């Protein structure tokens, strides 16, 4: 009886050791020292269609407390339901960077990616925007009618007119400006133009060019991409 008990204890101990050996990180992966920091290199705050691949890969950088890159540490990414990564985890390269392609989830709105080391101690949140049908339509309209003045960046095909105007139009991502307007304000400005609401006279009225639903789509797009994010304060969800 005694022998059996000893044997049992021994067996249990061995299996526990074996389990720990299996759980331990694969040899070769660099350990992540405490105080390490994950930073976003590029690929944050991108705007894409629901379900679609983000144009740019998301690149994050893992540095230790002194700011030196940590190569070979395994990072993994996770996100809301439906967000896909290619690859979802892997080691950082020689410069401590990890690059992954991200596909947006199937529902529109802001979504967050969480990059973390395998032990989960070092984390970084990266925010992206997925556009639904209405916002996508808004983006189309914006590209056609608005961006020439409301986007400071010029491309060979489209030269920005923003600097030529006084007062300067606000880029649609300027949440600090746009979040102050209610939906009704925005709709009115787009529809009736600047002068009608005592704003800049260079803003023409679009109410006779765009239908109400198109203006709503534009508003919805502006809300979707504004930074900081717009939160609808007129609606309060209090629990009973």
């Amino acid at each position, binding site marked *: 009886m005694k022998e059996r008990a000893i044997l049992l204890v021994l067996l249990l101990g061995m299996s526990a050791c074996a389990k720990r050996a299996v759980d331990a990180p694969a040899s070769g992966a660099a350990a992540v020292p405490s105080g390490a920091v994950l930073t976003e290199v590029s690929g944050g705050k991108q705007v894409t*269609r*629901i*379900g*679609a*691949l983000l*144009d740019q890969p998301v690149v994050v950088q893992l540095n230790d407390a002194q700011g030196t890159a940590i190569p070979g540490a395994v990072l993994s990414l996770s996100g*809301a*339901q*439906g967000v896909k990564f290619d690859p979802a985890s892997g080691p950082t390269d020689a410069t401590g960077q990890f690059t992954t392609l991200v*596909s*947006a*989830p*199937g*529902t*529109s709105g802001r979504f967050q990616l969480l990059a973390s080391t395998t032990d989960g101690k070092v984390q970084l949140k990266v925010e992206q925007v997925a556009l*639904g*049908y*209405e916002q*996508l*339509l808004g983006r*189309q*309209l914006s590209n*056609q*009618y608005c961006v*020439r*003045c409301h986007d400071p960046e010029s491309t*060979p*095909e*489209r*030269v*920005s*007119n923003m*600097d*030529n*105007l006084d007062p300067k139009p606000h880029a649609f991502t300027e949440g600090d400006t746009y979040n102050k307007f209610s939906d009704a304000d925005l709709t009115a400005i787009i529809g009736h*133009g600047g*002068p009608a609401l005592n704003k800049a*006279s*260079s803003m*023409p*009225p*679009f*109410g*006779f*060019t765009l239908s109400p*639903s198109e203006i*709503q789509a534009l508003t*919805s797009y502006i809300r979707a991409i504004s930074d900081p994010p717009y939160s*609808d304060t007129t*609606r*309060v*969800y*209090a*629990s*009973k």
Partner: protein
Amino acid sequence: MNGLRSLWNKFFGNSSRAFGSMSVILLLSLAIAPAKDFFSEWRHAQKNYVKLIRTRADAVTLERHVEPGLQQIWHPELGVVDRCTTCHLGLKEASLSNVTQQPFAKHPPIPHSLTQFGCVICHRGQGTATTEREAHHSTDSWEEPLLPANYIEASCGQCHLSPLRGTPTLNEGRRLLASEGCARCHNIKLADGSVVVPTDDPPELNHIADKTTREWIFAWVKNPQAYAASSTMPNFGFSDDDARDISAFLVAQSTKGPYPARTVKAASSDPNTVQQGASLYGQSFCASCHATQNAAGNLVGGDFGPELTRVGSKLKPEWLESWIRDPATYDPETRMPHFRLDDKQVGLISNYLQSKTDSDLLANVHLEPATQKQAEHGRALVLEYGCASCHQINGVKKPENFAPDLSRIGSKPFAQLAFPAGVEHTLPNYLTSKISKPRAFGAGLKMPKFALTTPQVDALATALLSLTSRANALPASLRIATQHESHYQPAGKAGQLISDLRCFSCHAFNGRGGTMAPDLSWEGSSVQREWLVDFLKNPNTLRPALIRRMPKFNLTGAEINTLTDYILTVYQNPAFDRDEIAPSSLTPQLAEQGKQLYYSKYSCQSCHMIDAQKDKGYIGPVLSQAGLRLTPAWTYQWLRNPQALRPGTIEPNQHMDDADAKALTAYLMTLKLRAKQGGN
């Protein structure tokens, strides 16, 4: 053991006991069926929904909207029964916009009403099912799972056969189907019976030996993108031997072209001549259509014609000169205009283009003289890979039904598809991997690899997924049919000129033509004769921000007169008379009033320039010579409603009243700055 036996005896020991016990067991077993029904998945979902909304502020309203029990949206004419709303209870509740927990999330806004179209028309899946697995995923009895959000625009394409503003991916996919040559091998019929017509322009190869060398053909066939990254010709993955044999065959079948032979001066490498050629290339706005790589490796220029970065390594000088002189003699179908250049200009441009060589391209290509056997094998390869689907080749007929028909690919059952290892068994995955890695499906397959980006592949898959059986079965009244390009052809001498200059390549007239330049269907109402003559003599751009510009065609005075007469008489807007506003009615007082409106009320200077020194508006055309260019009637009508004259124009409809429009017209008609010859 004994206990078990006595227990057995107690309940099944004799026939009466067995009868009694079995009856009870039967009763209990039978009772499970309704119980199973009662604890169904959808009842569970409904209970959870009620739990969810009870915690919210507007619980009373929300609860009033809940109809317990199975819900069904039935559309006999669409062939759809949807029970999705049995579990997806919050679809229409605007106040649930912050709920992300499925199946209760609110549906984002779409232009169709839920009850009018149901769910599966767009999302696919099995609408009749009341369990998540059966409704969302593919099963033995229903292969069509939910359409991933990435391809959701495919569903719009079932009814909307013409481009739709809200579906950029679908539009792009359809464009690619036509422009990447898919429709040259595959038959692609849309639900309204119209067939996708290829819009690419693969060259005919009947006289290819006049144009280029066997070495270049070899290198090109091996890897077209090595010569021009933007090439639409796909990579067939030919071996060196195969490429050698194809080049042998193509050279062997080539006949002498139908254009006059001219003596050609040897290309000069004098930097001065090359520089002159380059500036002539620039003045002729060749870059509006042709791209070249700049030092940074980026393509600069239009994608309408082939990329010219390494063109000197490709073309034979005598062919190039003949082509620049008049492209139509070599290829009557070409979209390139006849520039009417003189011999010196032709020589300069040809010389400049020949200097654009890439020594690496053909450095390693050394071909022995071709043998008969090689040419025969080359011919076999050309037949096998369907080269004649795109190119005209002497003695090879265009193959019919060369590749599978794709008209209903969006409803193809999995059972008929072969998936390569590692590809998840869904139709979108099949399509994307087939397009991006066609040879992964088997080494012997013919489909070549196209140089497409991931978004392009997704767009193509979206367009293909819209080709469903359901799209064909939907009532015709729901269909928004494709817009067919008209076969409009202007008549007479002017008509000949218009086709010789290939105006249709860039401008549209009466529903036919390109979108690169403005639609000229109503040009006759809009412009003044003198200005048009000047413009045709020396086109200068109206929009300083544009890089694509109208080239100078070196027209003779007679030709310009013919064109101008034609445009001013034929391309008139029927809605108004171009002379309806008499210049005398536009008084200076009115003009002064208009000037006020221009700068204050309407802030036109935000987008338009009059004084290039003072104004900065970059968006609209420069208006400094509006008085010379535009007719008063057009200007007035335009100000009243620009969208009516040119749908989709950026200029918004300002809803101007009559007086304002008249005043502004008067002001604009006073702007008569003479442009200096040579333009900008």
